[in-house]
């Protein structure tokens, strides 16, 4: 029995629809990307997690941005001026700026966003101290009135790393700064498809077709953010061997951070490029507890400066000498304030005898040194192992206490002695931009109880930091930065271990990946 004609027509119509639909799906350019971590929070002000910062750059835009020459460039701002007394800044937004919910970006949105950011960010807090008031002149023009001149207004508003002053709609930016925002509405080049977000697995972004990029070429976070794909999928693959297999087979296009041990494996595939796209890399550090013996004694901290071999840390972290190098500066090497004032103590010939002499002079009585380790963080773990071995060679009573990162960051807030659950040393690492200036480098503070974990107290460091903020020009800033560094070698708030880069891997059908401290998704083309 033959099929009735209507059924055949239906079948043909269905086939036609499928054929018509197929090219549309095929034409969609989807960039599949393995990020460095799982996106856990969508609020880049609530948390400083770099993955949330990266998400922020997808969804939000900024008033200003830092370019590859460390210059601050306007981004959402069209024009601005400063009064002669340097107390009033007036900004005007570019035309055509829209949020993902279709609403225009207004001065009220900007002010609410900046005020929320200023409650959480280190530089934002400094700007907040200097601020008399923000006010809206019109929907597109707003004004900042300062209490006294502050040279870093634009640097603060164009800050490249966490927390970045992203602009959100006023209704969202009014959220308490210590609570998460409810929805990811920005005015950035991509909009998050929240319905498709599966935490621990996938984040989906679609090109924001109403975004108006600047005309200038892209340079770091500045310039034109031209999106050349229709959709970006962040696929979190926790197992590195699986991630390697996925990029090898072409299931993903780009793997943000390639572990050193897998570089040789992927290098064999001619369809994959391995590159260092991060010009600044990251900086590792040994952080001391300045409140408890034995590292409350500066002599003992100074002793370690003579035996820390940065090359060992570089290899230990990066695996390959090409991806890690010594950086004997308290400011990220490759940035304007990096200098070598007093650096010979760390970069010169390693001197165990001198270190032992300083240990002796410190009056060290064999107190137990607890090195906290986070075995789930390879960079922290590698540093902890190297430091422990180094301390043992110096004849110190050291105990390596292994745990996970979650435990470490909780325990490091303990100011108790090691016998009561306290600690002596922990390691961490910060991306280059976060250690580029005295304003951003929280570990360089000497504000005692109010300082970052480890709580060093040094009034001279604080005075120098204040002087840096008041410095009239770049030459003066650089000079003060050198003085800060000289002082830091004396009080040793921490020891920089190495500067390292984690390479990125991508399929050769991608082009346009920007060289920048953050992996930006604009300008990337997929063939």
């Amino acid at each position: 029995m033959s099929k009735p004609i209507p059924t055949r027509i239906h079948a043909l119509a269905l086939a036609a629809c499928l054929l018509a639909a197929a090219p549309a799906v095929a034409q969609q350019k989807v960039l599949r990307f393995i990020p460095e971590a799982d996106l856990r929070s969508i609020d880049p002000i609530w948390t400083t997690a770099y993955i949330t910062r990266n998400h922020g750059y997808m969804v939000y835009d900024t008033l200003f941005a830092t370019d590859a020459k460390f210059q601050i460039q306007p981004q959402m701002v069209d024009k601005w001026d400063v009064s002669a007394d340097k107390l009033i800044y007036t900004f005007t937004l570019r035309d055509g700026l829209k949020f993902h919910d279709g609403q225009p970006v207004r001065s009220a949105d900007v002010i609410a966003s900046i005020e929320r950011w200023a409650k959480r960010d280190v530089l934002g807090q400094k700007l907040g101290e200097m601020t008399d008031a923000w006010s809206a002149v019109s929907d597109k023009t707003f004004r900042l009135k300062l209490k006294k001149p502050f040279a870093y207004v634009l640097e603060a508003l164009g800050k490249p790393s966490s927390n970045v002053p992203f602009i959100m709609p006023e209704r969202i930016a009014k959220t308490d700064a210590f609570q998460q925002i409810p929805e990811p509405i920005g005015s950035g080049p991509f909009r998050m498809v929240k319905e498709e977000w599966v935490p621990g697995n996938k984040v989906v972004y679609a090109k924001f077709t109403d975004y108006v990029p600047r005309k200038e070429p892209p340079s770091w976070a500045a310039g034109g953010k031209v999106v050349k794909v229709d959709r970006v999928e962040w696929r979190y693959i926790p197992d590195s061997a699986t991630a390697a297999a996925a990029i090898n087979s072409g299931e993903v296009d780009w793997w943000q951070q390639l572990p050193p041990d897998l570089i040789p494996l992927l290098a064999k595939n001619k369809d994959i490029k391995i590159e260092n796209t991060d010009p600044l890399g990251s900086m590792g550090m040994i952080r001391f507890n300045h409140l408890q013996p034995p590292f409350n004694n500066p002599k003992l901290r100074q002793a370690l400066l003579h035996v820390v071999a940065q090359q060992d840390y570089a290899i230990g972290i990066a695996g390959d000498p090409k991806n890690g190098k010594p950086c004997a500066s308290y400011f990220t090497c490759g940035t304007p304030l990096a200098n070598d004032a007093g650096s010979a103590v760390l970069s010169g010939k390693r001197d165990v005898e001198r270190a032992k002499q300083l240990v002796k002079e410190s009056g060290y009585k064999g107190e137990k040194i607890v090195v906290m380790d986070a075995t789930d963080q390879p960079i922290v773990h590698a540093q902890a192992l190297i430091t422990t071995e180094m301390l043992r060679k110096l004849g110190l009573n050291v105990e390596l206490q292994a745990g996970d990162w979650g435990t470490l960051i909780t325990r490091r807030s303990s100011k108790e002695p090691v016998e009561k659950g306290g600690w002596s040393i922990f390691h961490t690492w910060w991306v280059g931009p976060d250690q580029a200036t005295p304003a951003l480098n929280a570990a360089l503070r000497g504000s005692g109880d109010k300082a970052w974990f480890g709580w060093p107290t040094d009034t001279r460091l604080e005075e120098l930091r204040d002087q840096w903020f008041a410095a009239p020009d770049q030459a003066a800033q650089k000079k003060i930065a050198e003085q800060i560094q000289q002082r830091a070698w004396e009080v040793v708030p921490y020891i920089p271990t190495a500067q390292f880069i984690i390479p990125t891997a991508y399929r050769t059908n991608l082009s346009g990946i920007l060289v920048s401290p953050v992996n930006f998704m604009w300008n990337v083309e997929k063939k």
Partner: protein
Amino acid sequence: MFAYLVKRLLATIPVMGVVALFVFSLLYISPGDPAAVIAGDIATDEDIARIRAKLGLDQPYLVRFGTWLWALAHGDFGVSIFTNLPVSQLIGQRLEPTVALTLCTLIVTVLTAVPIGVIAAWRVGTWVDRVVMGFSVLGFSVPVFVFAYLLMFVFSIELEWLPVQGYVSITEGFWPFLRHMILPSVALGTVYMALIARITRASMLEVLSQDYIRTAQAKGLASRDVLMRHALKNAAVPIVTVIGIGIALLISGVVVTETVFAIPGIGRLTVDAILRRDYPIIQAVTLLFSAVYVLINLAVDLSYTLLDPRIRY
């Protein structure tokens, strides 16, 4: 039977209560602070304290436990500290892949292990038996992740037959779903195949040595009938018990498989939550797992009545 069922279901309530108390207390005393994870590296003690207060983590133990229990009694698992999404939504997203993986693994395991266990018992002492036993030892000995990488290398990288990772819902098509399930199911199922094959063989050997089997053979029944109708049915109780236990083990064992194959299931949700101290998720998932274990045990107990008419409740 019905009274027994109701009694067993009611008995789960105090069990769940104890689990809830235990899990909550364990998390309360365990080291780690989600506020510190959220605040990040640059945060000060004050920042962390303020986040902790906003999350209600500064409340006394009894207040926090009472609040959680009250919400639970109203069917509210709470909201993830990090993602700000309802825990029920997160579990809902993750349940399908885990259930799919568990069921696929179970099907692969039972369809493979029971027949080879029966054959090994039937051909005891022959090369067939030795091969099956050898496979069992191998299955027990090779860790799941090693087997997973091996399968991935052969079938995904070299032959390019199957995808390396990921999960596709069955609603997006049966074949894409199946393609993504084959390697994880086989990798995860190997150890259970070995377990069930060994138990089936041992149980069958015991039954095959019974007088009534000899009688059945003496009556001239075909080997197939003797094995399937007389022996296997009587050997089924321990096999079903092991399969039941296996389901519980599978649920907890999927963590490694889900990680290796990047399947967004409950196992990975749990591990991620533990690593970042996302208490509402840990509490909800542990309760869920406990409920599943209790129900599986109940189902296994009830299945005995079908397999052995002498068992009555």
